[in-house]
């Protein structure tokens, strides 16, 4: 089976093939707006960076520009807290959660999207309903369950449930999988492919951007998850993640915002880099497939 890949093209309707001036004007407008919005989006991070370089005294005062520069804050953050250990824990949590999620949720989304069966819509509604209950309340019986299983104090109560599907991911993948025309699967079936091969060799490769995006979201959500690790591992510093570590630069009354912001930047850096390369992969690798001749 072969697939024809096409270049990535602009999917948003471009200007009518009319005047050149219109086209270059819209080019300028798009770029100007795009850059302006980008700059506005980045300004608060300027604030975060400046705060990270300040003294604790100056942090969160009306004096926005550091009067003295303290790049050693970034080192101090490592001295005050075992950030490296937290990073490893976060990495383990995020990687495992994402991998488990993909294993369980991609097939489930595929089944929901591409098959017609009796309980289809009810199940779809149930997937959505899973996201509706407020997590703080549902955690109470779930926490009791994990406590009885003696797994509190570790990250497993956060990682293992992903083996049994994640509602957000299933929903997102299902919607993307809906957009792939049935013809491709039909053609493959006629050629004698089993359902498994249809799924893994035909349809899923076409949904690579969606799968990559879903995996990425799961990774970032796990990376930034604060309440989950707080509930399950706060009594066990060996299993703390970076999100818990971020909240430790404080006294009973006061947060040391310069260190908090420095730690935030350090924690953001890996995911930022990961995103930059991942988005290249799933955006620029969009394949518009043809059909087997």
């Amino acid at each position, binding site marked *: 089976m072969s697939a024809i890949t096409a270049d990535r093209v602009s999917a948003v309707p471009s200007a009518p093939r009319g005047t050149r001036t219109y086209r270059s004007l819209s080019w300028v407008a798009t770029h100007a707006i795009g850059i302006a919005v980008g700059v506005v989006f980045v300004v608060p991070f300027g604030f975060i960076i400046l705060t990270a370089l300040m003294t604790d005294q100056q942090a969160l005062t009306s004096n926005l520009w550091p009067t003295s520069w303290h790049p050693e804050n970034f080192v101090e953050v490592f001295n005050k807290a075992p950030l490296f250990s937290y990073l490893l824990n976060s990495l383990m949590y995020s990687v495992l959660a994402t991998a488990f999620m993909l294993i369980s949720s991609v097939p489930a989304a595929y089944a929901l999207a591409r098959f017609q069966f009796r309980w289809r819509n009810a199940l779809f509604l149930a997937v959505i309903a899973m996201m509706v209950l407020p997590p703080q309340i549902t955690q109470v019986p779930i*926490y009791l369950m994990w406590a009885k299983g003696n797994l509190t104090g570790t990250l497993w109560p956060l990682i293992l449930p992903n083996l049994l599907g994640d509602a957000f991911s299933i929903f997102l993948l299902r919607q993307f999988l809906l957009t792939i025309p049935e013809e491709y699967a039909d053609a493959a079936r006629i050629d004698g492919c089993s359902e498994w091969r249809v799924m893994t060799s035909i349809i899923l490769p076409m949904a690579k951007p969606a799968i990559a995006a879903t995996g990425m979201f799961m990774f970032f959500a796990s990376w930034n998850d604060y309440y989950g690790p707080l509930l399950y591992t706060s009594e066990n510093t060996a299993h703390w993640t970076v999100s818990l570590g971020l909240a430790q630069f404080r006294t009973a009354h*006061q947060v040391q915002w310069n260190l908090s912001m420095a730690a935030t930047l350090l924690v953001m850096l890996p995911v930022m880099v990961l995103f930059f390369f991942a988005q290249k992969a799933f955006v620029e690798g969009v394949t518009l497939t043809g059909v087997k001749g």
Partner: protein
Amino acid sequence: MKTLRSTRVAAAGLAAIGLLVTACSGGSTGAEQPVPSGPATGTVEFWHFFADREAKALQSVVDDFQTSHPQIKVVVKSGQDDTKATQAISAGKGPDLDLSYSTDITGKFCSSGAFRDLSGYIARDKVDMAQFPQTVKDYTEFQGKRCAMPLLSDTYGLYYNKTLLAAAGYTEPPKTATELAEMAKKLTKRNADGSIKVAGFVPTVGFYENAPAHSGPVYGAKWLTSEGKSAIGTDPAWKSWLTWQKSLVDWYGADKLAKFTAGAGQEFSADNAFETGKIAMAMDGEYRNAFIKNEHPELKYGTAPFPTADDKTSLYGGGYVTGNIIGISKGAKNPAAAWELLKYLSTDTGALVKLANGVKNVPTTLPALTSPDLESDANFKTFLDIFSNPNSATTPASPNGGAYQVTFQDFVVKWQDGKVPDLDAGLKDVDKQIDSALLLGQAP
């Protein structure tokens, strides 16, 4: 028949729910555990909320304990908050000893047995309860059941800017509400457009440390009756305070105050409006001394007990007292050793002084208060005196986490915004809300 079948299904469902609910809960309060005799050994797991520098201060005190009690090993977990402790205790995964930041959990933890009854231990070891002022005893027990001991305290009083006061011709801080209002008005400076430049005293509740709880003691105002019902609507002291407060708010202009407080710096940053001289007098706790020393050592300020109601001058010298509490949790694996640590932390003068010096709070026993090792200066001493003053008071324990304070504060915010046309009716409403909220948690 269809109806019979659905009724059976519903009944089965409810029964399942019932079973599930009782099976999956944390367990019953259990009978009273006997006080063990004999030496205490083994491991104690100790949870507290401090982090960073303050956690180190507490750790050094714990290290002293381990030196003098080599047969007990203490495992310390810092950075734990009340919600976490509650969930862990309910699941049977709680610590032996838990230090809580606030007194709000006392009522619930005592009445439900989440913290054990300490009276047996206290009697066995003949702990002298007279070394604690009445206020701290009040916030560590509920309905006669003592389930916690106090550890460190925060007390509240008046901070005043000596420079600004002197410039307006004042040498003494105000002692009554009328004096406070008068001085506040004289000390206020305005910009050309009428907005506030320097505020004599900001009366807005919800701003910095302005809370009804902090003003209650200097008005002699009662929160709850002895039966645990709301006393706010029937106590004339609250009405008197509210009237005073609103008249000052109206003098400033509620919207002008809103603009001023919106632009005031973060309370716990070096931009604190009192520390930068934008506010002449403020209500705050003893910890503010340490912040001023760190951030604005040039500030010439003084501290004093907070001004009382005009008709309650005998209360002068008292103030609002609150603090941290420490207790042995229900599922503790080693209550005997936990008690040794608890007793040490809460009654050993050396330990308390060391901790108070490290965290810059008020120690909670009278001997520690008068210890020569306690680091203090004139400004800090004010708060030590307030702490031991018999006129000081605290917010009474309640089984729903001090919800009455949130209800009343909510009302006061509406009141100062001018949204309450009839004060008496409004206060009666507050009583009703507080009482019905308490009923929500009552045993069926």
